[in-house]
């Protein structure tokens, strides 16, 4: 096991796959010479050269168009969209083209590509560089949607996404890039579409994604230490496909479920899970479903305002205490 940061795990995952498959090509704005604005792709240019690791103009539609055209003919492109907010600039290519082409060709054309993007708040970047837009991608049939919470999953899930024959939108969380964690040595690959149970508890099942996972875990420790509430914490990891088997099994065990979501409340990913839980195991529930989310507002910039929008450990603890008491 080596200890890597989340950002080092990104480069490690890409490098692992580029070394094994010459069809993997990586393009994006400032990804090569600069090593990425978040320094998540440092060293790739040196290792694989400018043919395979390519700086692009600031042209999101052309980046994804290039990736799509390349994927249609058998390459496995990784395209970086620097901030997930910028997906809106090229959403046509994502939602109308990449997501639908397999269907519209009746399976003739596969699109084995990965769109990597830095998602989420906590960095005081304001409303156009802080959004959590995983629910945008989740709403479009034909895309897989992944959002890792730790370095090992970054490497393993990114490798899996690159090898996958479907288009995958891979949401990295920008406030996690400096987080360190153990990453298995040698080739590491995870399975897409699997949630992971990180903590077992009897009282409530907490579902979290990306940067909300460490917060949910910290909240669970405090609930246990200070309030004798034992929470199961699940890292959802993949929104599409969604591991409903694991989620429902763990919800039934505790009879209570809470989601911790960074996306704005309306139509957030937890709303879909709440709906599934209500349909599938309503009679196993002992209490109403709880959703802890960012409110339905744009992300503000000032410290105190942003801290009041994105769910915090304190808010998770307080909300769950109130729900359980």
């Amino acid at each position: 096991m080596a200890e890597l940061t989340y950002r080092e795990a990104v480069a490690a995952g890409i490098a692992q796959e580029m070394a094994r498959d010459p069809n993997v090509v990586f393009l994006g704005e400032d990804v090569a010479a600069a090593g990425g604005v978040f320094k998540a792709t440092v060293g790739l240019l040196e290792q694989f050269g400018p043919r395979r690791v390519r700086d692009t103009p600031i042209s999101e539609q052309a980046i994804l168009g290039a990736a799509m055209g390349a994927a249609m003919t058998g390459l496995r492109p990784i395209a970086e969209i620097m901030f997930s907010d910028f997906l809106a600039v090229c959403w046509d290519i994502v939602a109308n083209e990449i997501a639908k082409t397999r269907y519209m060709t009746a399976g003739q054309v596969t699109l084995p590509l990965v769109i990597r993007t830095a998602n989420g708040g906590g960095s005081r970047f304001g409303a156009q560089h802080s959004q959590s837009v995983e629910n945008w991608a989740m709403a479009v049939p034909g895309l897989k949607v992944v959002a890792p919470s730790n370095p090992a999953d970054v490497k393993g899930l990114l490798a899996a996404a690159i090898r996958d024959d479907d288009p995958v939108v891979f949401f990295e969380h920008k406030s996690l890039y400096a987080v360190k964690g153990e990453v298995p040595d040698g080739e590491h690959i995870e399975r897409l579409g699997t949630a992971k149970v990180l903590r077992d508890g009897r009282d409530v099942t907490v579902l979290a994604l990306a940067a909300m996972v460490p917060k949910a875990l910290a909240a669970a420790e405090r609930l246990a230490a200070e309030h004798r509430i034992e929470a199961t914490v699940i890292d959802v990891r993949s929104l599409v496909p969604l591991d409903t088997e694991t989620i429902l099994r763990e919800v039934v065990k505790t009879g209570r479920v809470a989601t911790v979501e960074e996306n704005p409340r309306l139509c957030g990913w937890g709303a879909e899970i709440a709906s599934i839980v209500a349909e599938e195991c309503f009679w196993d529930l002992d209490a109403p479903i709880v959703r802890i989310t960012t409110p339905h507002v744009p992300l503000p910039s000032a410290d105190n305002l942003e801290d009041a929008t994105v769910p915090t450990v304190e808010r998770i603890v307080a909300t769950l205490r109130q729900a359980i008491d």
Partner: protein
Amino acid sequence: MPASAKRKGPSEPHAPEEAAKSRNGHAGHEVDPGLLLKFYRDMLLIRRFEERAGQLYGMGLIGGFCHLYIGQEAVVVGLQHALKDGDRVVTTYRDHGHMLACGMDPKGVMAELTGRRTGYSKGKGGSMHMFSREKNFYGGHGIVGASVPIGTGLGFAAKYTGSDAIAVTYFGDGAVNQGQVHESMNMAALWHLPVLYVIENNKYGMGTSVERASASKELFRVGCYAGVPGEQTDGMDVVAVHEAGRKAVDYIRSGQGPRILEMQTYRYRGHSMSDPAKYRSRDEVTRMRTERDPIDHAGRLLLAAGTVTEDKLKEIDREVRAAVAEAAEFAQNSPEPDPAELYTDVLVPA
């Protein structure tokens, strides 16, 4: 650079002598009579196919959108004959002609139009979304301008893999004003990608004429900033199209980067079947049909060359009509899609 651009578009105030050349012969290009006969047949197949599609639409057998290519046949036929096997093609929603010119089976195309399981996309694509990996035809895209970045990607992949294939991306005059065109041409020029950008300037972006939509009427100059050379060609003259295509393809295949061809053409029908096209005069349409029809033009060239007779042209028409009738019959007799298909091909099966 575009300075050398030819300017002889059909609705431009073209010089009478040039128009006469176009009617009686062509602008100085020689073409093999056998190839010209192929152009003629291919254009006629598209014409008859589209006429039949229009009929089936009127009969309620084709639903949704149906954008006919009638009038523009010389563009895709002339250009496709300038390509070689392995070259990749992508276009917009006015795509039936492109599919036929790429060698796709009229039966499969008509079956897709009528929403049958034997269609190229098993009924899940429709008029605007058909593909053939086998023929290197990558759609069929419904969003104005979207074929441009995708075609750029097809060219990127060709270069990346060391193939000598080129990518041809067709789009209309309306798409020229889309931002993604600018992004794509810059990237293609920056990376010397083997992409031929073909602007099919049929004078109207839906109901808005180029005059009302574009500050510059010189659409072939759209790549000027990025240094993508452009040229304007009479898209109603299949020989001129082929010649311009051949030169552009040679240039691109030699590794010199992308090029633009603006084809001055004209669609006889409305934007789609539901468009009565009241934004232009009947006279304008009649004049184009009678004076500039690309199929009549090729027919006259063939007869003037003395290599075929009127009877031969009639025979070709009979053959083409028979092929189209067979396609229509095949389509109408094919079963509807299996309802289970609704849920397949969203993602690769696990």
